[in-house]
Each structure stands twice: as C-alpha cells, then as structure tokens.
C-alpha cells in the first residue's frame, strides 16, 4: 500500500502543480458549451434558394408556393432565369434552385403530374440529404395547397350545379305531363345548360383517390356526375324525338339520378376543402411535457449535448493522461529506477489509476456542477452518476495506458490520443446517432468508452432513468480487458527497461 500510495501521491502532486490544466479542463468545455448554446440557431442547414415560377401562375398561387418554399429554404430576393440560376449554383452563390413548371392546373386537370425541378450543387452528403428531405416536405405542402385550391373551385362549381339541378329535376317532372312543343324546346335548352354545368363540374372534381376512405357518396361523385350527364343526354334524345310518352320511365330515372347527384353535391360542398385534401391530421405531444408542464419536451441543444461533452471530457482527459503517463516515464528512464526498487509494476499501475481517477473525478464534478449554470439537470441518482463517471474514467484510462504501452514517444502518444478522440466524435453517438451506422460498426462503437458514457449520462442527467445494463457491462469489460493488457504489456516493458 505504501508503494501504491507513493505513485498515487506523485501523480496527484504533479497534477496539482498544474492548476491551468484543471482550469482548462473545466472552463474550456464549459465555455464551448456556453458558446454553442448562445450561437446555435438551427439544426438544419441554411439553403440559399432561387425559386423560378412560370408567368401563367395566378398571383395568389405564386404567393402561396413562395410562402411554402420559404418555410424550408431561404429564398433569395432576386429574380433568376434558369441559366443564371444554374450559373449561380455552380459558382456557389446559390445552394438550391427550384423550377415550377408552366400550366400546373392544366396538367393537373389532364391527369398529368407537373414536376417541380430541384437542383443543388451540394458537396456535403448531410446537406444533400437535408435538401432532398426538405424538398419532399415542401412538395407535399405544395400538392396539398394545389389540391385544396382545386377542391375549393370544384365546390364553387358544385354549388352552382346544385342550384340548377333542382330546377332541372322540376323540369323533368313537368315533361312527364303534357307540355307544348315550345315548352319542350325551352326545357330542352335549360337541360342542355345544366348538362354543360355538370360537365364543367365533373372536370374540376379532384382525383378520386383524394376521397379514398370517405363515404361512397363523396367517393363516387365523378361517377354520379357522369350518370347525370348520360341521363340528360337520354332526355335530350327523347325531346328531339318528341315521343315523350314512351320515355316516361327514362324521365323518372333521369330525375332520380339528378337528385342523387344533388345529394352528393350537398355532402361534397359541406366538407371543408382542407379536410378533403388532408383527411388525416397529426397531433404531436412529447410526453415529457405532461410531467414538466412546459410546451416543449425536448431540451435546448446546449443541454442535450452537455452529457456528451462531459463524457468527451472524461474520456479525452483520461486517454491523454494515460497515453502520456507510461511513455513519459519510460522515456525519462524512471522505469529503470522503479525496476531497481522493490516496487512492482502492478503497484505502479494502480497508483497511477488512482491518481488520475481522483483528478478526473474532481474535474468532472466541477464541470457537471458548472453545467448546472447552463441549465443542465441531473435528473437521475447522483450515486449512479458517480459510479458511471468512475467506470468511464477507469475504462478510458485503460485505453490511454494501452496507447502508452504501444507509443514510442510523447508525440506518438498524443497522435494516438487524437485519433481516439476523432474515432469517438464520429462513432460514439455524440453528434451522429449510433443507429446511423452499418451493423458491422457496432463492435467498434462498443469498444469506445465514450459511446457508453454518452448514452449513460444522457439517461441519468436528462431522462432520469438508470442506464441500460449494457452500458455498465461494456464499460466494465473495457476496464478489465485494458487493465489486463496494460499489465501484461507494461510488465514486458518493465523487464526490458
């Protein structure tokens, strides 16, 4: 114990003599977090976008499309031709160009799919993903707006048709009685006008799939309109032939079909266009709002990333200290002195583990306390938090000592520590979710102590739940295996000192 204490005290005293190290370890990450919190505005990228609209688009629709595009893209305040826009895209002055085709409504009515062309010159795969996603969302909104407008127009037409149908039905009733030839001609003219209106209405009825899931009355609107048109054609033929007595049955059927259409029109116009276009609505709720009584359940970005920063600080400090610890002593010749003494290498390692653990624990506790100033909570059990911190520190120190056993010099050790930092930032789930990687990356992720630290600290600090057993087990395994390896390798180096 005396020898373990000697190594322990030596490390503690050495670090104590470097107050700047402690200050930078606490103040540095805190400052970065504070800057991040103050400066972070949006998680999706700002995309400078030119929107090229056709001249034939009505002003209200232009405004609506521009408004929708402006939700996801930052529209530049300048008119571009297609050539100018592509040139600006190539030179990096624009990020996105959107081109809305001509005759959108005509194409829609003809059953065609008008296509909005979206160009980008992105080099960042994440940005390209964002552009595709935001464009998809925007096109959905535009489709919704166009269909809503089309439905609204169809409803206006339907109201006009509805008024005429009532008149038309009464005229058919009149025909069942004996009417003069002149009256027949007048009725025939009225019915032709009615037919023309129904044809116009039928042509503006939104696609049938829009009504999918609604009642048959609405879903079959187009079919009913066609039935009514056909019935009116038959009446017209009867009137032309002048033999109305033989066609009394057809007249009654036609009147029934008109009344059926009238009923369906009445239902159709009674539904709000938005309801027809978007029958399913969403209502989002973060269940955390129930317990915390706030509108938004998610934390601000600065708070969300704080556990990751803490895990990063613990791991990087431990890895750096560990990486330099043995290589420095080996290079300065201290191993020789240790070998001549009765102290053994396990005592050396335990002493160093203890010394660095105490230091990192102090720095981490100070940082965690300082994070409270930024509103970072500790929702979970602080004892579990301390235990996780301890495990993460020991596992990370093991990784650092392992680097120390293979590094041939200080600079190599620092280089390896930097590589481990890079590896951690990419694969630990700090910025990029671990689910984003292929399955074969999982073992690499599991080997990084910080991966478990980030998950564990997020659970404990932000969710207030106990981290998964996997977190504890994996960290424990890393700590044990690295200690074993470091002991074995250092023993060998010790013998060769």
């Amino acid at each position, binding site marked *: 114990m*005396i*020898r373990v*204490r*000697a190594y322990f*005290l*030596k490390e503690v*005293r*050495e670090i104590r*003599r*470097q107050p700047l190290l402690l200050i930078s370890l606490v103040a540095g990450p805190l400052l970065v977090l504070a800057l991040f919190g103050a400066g972070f505005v949006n998680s999706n990228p700002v995309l400078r976008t030119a929107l090229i609209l056709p001249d034939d688009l009505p002003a209200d629709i232009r405004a609506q499309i521009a408004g929708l595009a402006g939700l996801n893209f930052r529209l530049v305040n300048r008119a571009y031709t297609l050539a100018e826009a592509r040139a600006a895209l190539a030179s990096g002055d624009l990020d996105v160009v959107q081109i809305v085709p001509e005759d959108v409504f005509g194409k829609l009515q003809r059953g065609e799919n008008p296509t909005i062309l979206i160009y980008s010159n992105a080099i960042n795969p994440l940005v390209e993903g964002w552009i595709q996603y935001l464009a998809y969302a925007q096109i959905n909104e535009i489709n919704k707006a166009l269909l809503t407008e089309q439905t609204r127009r169809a409803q206006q037409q339907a109201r006009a048709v509805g008024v005429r149908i009532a008149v038309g039905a009464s005229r058919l009733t009149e025909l069942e009685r004996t009417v003069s030839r002149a009256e027949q001609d007048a009725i025939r003219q009225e019915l032709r006008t009615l037919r023309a209106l129904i044809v116009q209405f039928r042509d503006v009825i939104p696609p049938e799939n829009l009504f999918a899931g609604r009642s048959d009355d609405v879903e079959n609107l187009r079919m009913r309109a066609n039935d009514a048109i056909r019935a009116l054609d038959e009446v017209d033929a009867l009137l032309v032939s002048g033999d109305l007595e033989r066609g009394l049955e057809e007249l009654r059927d036609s009147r029934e079909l008109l009344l059926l259409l009238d009923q369906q029109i009445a239902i159709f116009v009674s539904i709000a266009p938005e309801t027809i276009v978007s029958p399913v609505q969403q209502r989002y709720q973060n269940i955390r709002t129930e317990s915390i009584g706030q509108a938004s359940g998610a934390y601000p970005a600065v708070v969300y990333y704080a556990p990751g920063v803490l895990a990063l600080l613990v791991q990087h400090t431990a890895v750096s200290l560990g990486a330099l610890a043995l290589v420095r002593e080996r290079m*300065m*010749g*201290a191993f*020789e*002195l*240790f*070998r*001549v*003494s*009765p*102290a053994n290498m396990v005592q050396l390692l335990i002493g160093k583990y203890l010394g660095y653990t105490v230091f990192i624990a102090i720095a981490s506790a100070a940082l965690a306390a300082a994070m409270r100033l930024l509103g970072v909570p500790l929702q979970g059990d602080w004892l579990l938090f301390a235990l996780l911190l301890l495990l993460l520190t020991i596992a990370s120190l093991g990784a650092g000592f392992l680097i120390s056993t293979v590094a041939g010099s200080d600079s190599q050790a620092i280089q390896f520590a930097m590589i481990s930092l890079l590896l951690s930032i990419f694969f630990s789930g700090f910025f990029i979710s671990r689910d984003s990687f292929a399955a074969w990356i999982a073992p690499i992720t599991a080997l990084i102590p910080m991966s478990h630290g980030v998950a564990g600290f997020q659970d404990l600090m932000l969710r207030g739940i106990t981290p998964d057993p996997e977190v504890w087990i994996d960290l424990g395994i890393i700590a044990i295996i690295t200690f074993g390896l470091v002991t074995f390798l250092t023993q060998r180096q010790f013998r060769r*000192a």
Partner: protein
Amino acid sequence: MTSTRANVIESHNVSLIFGENAGVFDQTYTVPEGTILGLIGPSGCGKTTTVRLALGLYRPHKGTIRVLGVNPAAFRPEHQARIGYIPQQFVLYPNLSVTENAEFLASLYGMRRHQIRQRLDELLEFVDLASARHRLGRQLSGGMQRRLMLVGALMHDPDLIFADEPTAGIDPVLRGRFWDYFRTLRDQGRTLLITTQIVSEAMYCDYVAVMRQGRLLAIDTPQNLKRRALGGEIIHLTLADPAHLAKAVSALRRCPHVKEVRYVPESDRELHVTVDDAGNWIPEVLNILEDPDGPNIVVESAEELALTFDDVFIRIIRQWENQPIDQTADAMMERESHGQHSARTSHAAQPDNAAPRR
C-alpha cells in the same frame, strides 16, 4: 594486493553482446565490501552496461555475476532494498519539490512517513539541500538535481550504491564535494560502484577499473595502476649543464635499479628516470650522477614526477592498443582462469598485460 573483506559484487567472465563490437566482454572483477570501485572510461565503453548487469536490469549472455551473494536477475525485494541507484540522467519529477521527490523514492522502498521525515532531514543536510527542500525539481540547477538523485538513492539507507556518472556535467568544486559524500558513505561501511568519464576522479576511488570498448583493461588501486602504467615511479631530473645529458643517461642505464631513462621532449637538460620507488631512489640516483669518481655531473633538481591520471589512463590505453592482435579475450580469460580471481589486484594485471587490441 588482496582484501579480507567479503565481496559485495563478483563478476566472472560476464559478456553481454548487443551487436558487433557492442556490449561488454569477459568482465571479471570483484568489489569488496566498504570500498569504492570507480569504472573509468570514455563514453560508450560499457560502463552503464556493467552497472545494469550488476543491478539485474540486463542478464548476461555468458558468465556469472553475483551481487550481495545472489544472481541479480533473481533479486528479491529484500535484496533490492539494500541497493541504491543513481542513474545517469535526472529521472525525478520536475513538478515535484525536493522533499516530494525524495519522499516518492523512499516510499518505493516501503519507508513510512516518520522514517522518511527523519532520514530526509539528515540527507538534505548531508548534501546541502536543506534550504532548497521546497523547490521544485525544474527549479534546481544541474548540480542540485544530482544531489537530489543522491538523496533519493540514499533515502532507504542502502548497503550498496551504484552511481552512473554522478559528476557528469557539473563543476569541479561540486565534483569534489560529491566525492567527499561518496567517501563519507564508504567510511560508513557502504560499498560504491561509481562510473565516470573524468579520469582524474580515479584518485578518489579505492579501486579503479579502466574500461574501453566493453572490456576491463585494468583494475587496481589508483597507485598500483599508476605504477603499472608507468612501470614504476618517475624521477624528474634537471641537469645544470646540458652537455652532460648523454653522459648522465649512460651512467643511469648502467644502474640495475633504474628501469628506464628517457629524454624529456624539447628539453636539452631534463631526464625522466623510472624506478620502483622514487622516494627511496632519488638519493641513489643523485649519488650515481654526482660521484666525483664517476660521471661527476651537477644535478640542478631531482623530484618525483607527479603524473596526472589522464596520463596514466592514456598510457594504459596505449599499452592495450599495442598488444598483438592475436591475443584474444578468450586467450586472456584462459590465462586468468588459473587461480587469479581472489583479488581485484590480480585482475588488474591481466588486462594490462594481455588484453587484445580490438
């Protein structure tokens, strides 16, 4: 010259070869208890390797070595606790104070706090570092760092101390003080093996081993080494009349007690006369030269020539280099194996006379 004291280190035919002409070869020597053995030789001659072999840091490829009665490779903590070691470079911690560094080293030897405190006070006084006890390692001068290393090596009160070039890079005054410390330690009964590149420091040692290219060329007391190097002691003669120089040489060469007579370069009236014992033979030499019935030469002055150890070292090296090439180390060791291993002095004679030129 032999010793009745027990040998703390016994090395027999030890070789450790790192590569062609690198390493140490056929080292046979003993170090009696309570003495200082100085390993002297140029940089890279194998001094540190010799120390590391004795510390058990290296294992010999050939031969046997026993330190404190055991093979160093099998040192147990109780053996290690009897050894103090000052490595060549400063391996203590720049961010720890003098006291903390010494405490750290003492703790490695299992010393408790109260023992450390008492011992540290003594040692800091001993090496004049008491006033610097709170100074950080990085704030110490080179000499202070060396003294701190000495304190660290002595904290656990070892019987055997290895010091690898403890005086390298420090001023002559401080070097003198270091040797004072070492001799005090020797007087307290400790055994010291000290390496140095500074040949003049040989005079502070009880025994000196001259090393070159991994081999022990000579090992003996400083005085005996001098005699061996020079073939005796030298009387420096200055004649009153340069014209008598040739006559003086002729007269002296006829004397059976005179081993050699040499002209002093760039002088027309000085001679160097080699005899067994200069103190005893100066009157006899004067009698021979001033004999009125003989040469009748007036001698202006006659005194023992005080050669520096640098001269002795150079002579030993030259003698070794002038050995026939076919006298290999193996042949040398074969001769050595005929019962000459009991005392360091006997070993000193072997390399002097028979070591091969490499």
